[in-house]
């Protein structure tokens, strides 16, 4: 039917997945740094921690808008079903992001109210991370669909499983934040971050195992996908790779290495993301709606693809440039100068 030599919904599924993954790891370490504020009560440490993510956080957060916008443009049906299904956790996440976003700016504009904005920074980040994790669990456990609309109630997202994934994401972000600080700071703060990274790494691995064990029992389809031929060819390498990366991660932490723990934590996230993709593909609402059912017409997908193909590489170049400019350790005396 299509005049195009490739499948547009598949391309768009990968673009949206890329945007979501970029968001998760990039904003993941920003949020994670904020989650570690309670472990670092000194003002000076907090200044350095915030400075380490300040140059990049809002570029990072924009991937969330692109993920949502891409979903709306390319898969409007999925957007229309998932958003009401995830109503409460998403609204909580958005409000959390508002609080932590303005905290970046407001914290420096006041002496008196600084503790308030510190709380907003950590609290907002915690709510956002928890909301994202709960939303993930709620999608995985399945949402009820009738016709072209969400058919469940507004508390359906709440379950033991979604709380588990919520805690898992919070823990994983804290790991990203801690290993980011190991990479970006020195002295006492770096040592403290190293001490924090190890328990968060172990806890994150524990969560990965628990969530992985629970997932096949959610839906028959996951069980089939994971343990039946030929799905098993795809699913077996993922846990093996996770185990390998986990070992390297723990060893790099024990060796007090600078950047390896962060890179290995990113790889851990990537593998989990691949695992999720393998479990869900080719659906976009697990067990209910496939990417082809949800896809907007070719005319819509092509129209946005043209701009995306031009703008995303430029955006990525700029992002890389920004990270390059701010490479190296944060200097606690002079900010970045």
């Amino acid at each position, binding site marked *: 039917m299509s005049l195009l030599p490739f499948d547009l919904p598949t391309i768009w599924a990968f673009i949206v997945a890329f945007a979501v993954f970029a968001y998760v790891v990039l904003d993941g370490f920003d949020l994670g740094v904020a989650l570690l504020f309670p472990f670092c009560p000194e003002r000076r440490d907090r200044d350095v921690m915030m*400075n380490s993510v*300040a*140059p990049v956080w*809002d*570029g990072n*957060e*924009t991937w969330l*808008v*692109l993920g*949502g*916008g891409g979903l*709306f*443009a*390319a898969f*409007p*049906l999925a*957007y*229309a*079903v998932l*958003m*009401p299904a995830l*109503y409460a956790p*998403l609204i909580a996440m*958005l*409000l959390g*992001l*508002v*609080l932590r*976003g*303005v905290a*970046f*700016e407001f914290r*420096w*504009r*006041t002496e008196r109210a600084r503790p308030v904005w510190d709380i907003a920074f950590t609290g907002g980040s915690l709510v956002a991370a928890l909301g994202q994790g709960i939303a993930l669990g709620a999608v995985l456990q399945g949402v009820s669909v009738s016709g*072209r*609309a*969400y058919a469940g*109630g*507004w508390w359906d997202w709440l379950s033991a499983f979604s709380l588990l994934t919520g805690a898992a994401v919070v823990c994983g972000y804290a790991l990203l934040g801690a290993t980011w600080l190991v990479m970006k700071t020195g002295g006492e703060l770096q040592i403290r971050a190293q001490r924090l990274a190890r328990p968060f790494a172990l806890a994150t691995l524990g969560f990965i195992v628990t969530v992985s064990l629970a997932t096949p029992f959610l839906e028959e389809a996951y069980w089939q996908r994971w343990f039946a031929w030929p799905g098993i060819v795809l699913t077996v390498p993922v846990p093996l790779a996770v185990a390998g990366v986990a070992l390297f991660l723990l060893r790099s932490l024990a060796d007090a290495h600078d950047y390896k723990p962060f890179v290995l934590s990113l790889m851990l996230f990537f593998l989990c993301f691949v695992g999720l993709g393998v479990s869900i593909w080719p659906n976009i609402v697990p067990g209910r709606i496939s990417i082809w059912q949800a896809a*907007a*017409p070719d*005319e*819509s997908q092509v129209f*946005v693809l043209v*701009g*995306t193909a031009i*703008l*995303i590489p*430029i*955006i990525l170049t*700029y*992002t890389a440039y*920004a990270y390059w*400019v*701010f490479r190296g350790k944060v200097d606690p*005396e*002079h*900010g970045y*100068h």
Partner: protein
Amino acid sequence: MAHLDAVLLARAQFAFTMGFHIVFPAFSIGLASYLAVLEGLWLATGRQVYLDLFKYWLKIFAVGFAMGVVSGVVMSYQFGTNWSVFSDKAGPVVGPLMAYEVMSAFFLEAGFLGVMLFGMGRVGKVLHYLATLLVAAGTLFSAFWILTVNSWMQTPAGYATNAQGQFVPADWWQIVFSPSFPYRFVHMVLAAYLTTGLVIGAVGAWHLLRGRRDQEGVRVMFGMAMGLVLVVAPLQIFAGDAHGLNTLEHQPAKVMAMEGHFESHPNGAPLVLFGLPDQDAATVRYKVEVPKLSSLILKHSLDAPLAGLDSVPRANWPPVPVVFWSFRIMVGLGFLMLGLGLFGLVARLKGKLADWRPLHLYALSMGPAGFVAVLAGWTTTEVGRQPFTVYGVLRTADSVSPLGAPAVAGSLAAFAAIYLAVFAAGVFYILRLMSALPHLGESGPSPAEPVRTAGLAPGPAITPGHGLQPGE
């Protein structure tokens, strides 16, 4: 009935989050262009005062832009969370337009704004000016795309309907340039310029009232703002009139509500200046009207017939009192802006621009007028589109998410509580920045504060020694 309540709550939530959001882009669009003008004047003339003003307003721009970003992220999810049926049905048409809006905003944010805030010390004058120009262009691109979405919802064109009941694109050119788009775009961009001009004028007036006419920056700022208001206010009245005629052609019921015309007038319709519209009784009580003037304005003929809401089924009536009053607030403020521009002209001709206290008091009191007019204007056009989301083809009641009233009410309360706290603090910090005088080196760099690549710029990115003034 429960469904209707959920619809009303969802509308209230969208209006609330959108109302908070729109004031920041409205300010950013104008301010970005103003910054480009200031830097251009500095490069052309080499006068220090333009550079000082540039740095002064850049700080304020950064805070406003940040609040626009955080409230904008919310908007990209509001469509799905509260208007999921609309998202499904209209997604193939408006989704791509919104994706372009996101990408152009993203592009600007991740890239050129960073360069703009880095300062000239790192990239050189020409490249820096290019970045400033691109930021200004980027804000206009953002406005362009989001207004294509809104205009298509007001005056849908270039679409077909598929078997699933979705609107699908048939002609992108017609979709992007739908009948009301050119008018809406011009009207909104002029509104943003006026809003910013009035804020700048009010800040200048404030410092003049406090006796700081010795400061060149204050005088230049005030003079430029009064000039802008003088030129743009009449243009805006003209553009608004053209927009109104376009609305009469495509959305006559909205104009009937704006005019308070419940009855048809076959022999020339009066212009209702004031009155109390009563939707149930279908009449305007206590009205003060000028005979035949409405026909003259809308049809350019005293005796031209004008249809009223009695020619429209009641089920398709917008809420008349809201549209009637928000329209009058907008128009009233527009004429007050024109008055300020003329007052400023007289003062300028007499060489008293920096001396006339009544002018300064007038300008100061008009500081928030642009924001109020923008909100009133959007209320007119959005409430006037009711009871449809896509005018004439998709009803609001059929667009809403399948959510109970408690869910929507609960989230609305949470938005209200957090937005009011956060934005009150933000406005407080912006006002504090504005209450400082624009002069060189007013705030020394604080070593603890960060430089940012994008979005947010505290002092160091733009103060001497770290940014625009290499070598200090």
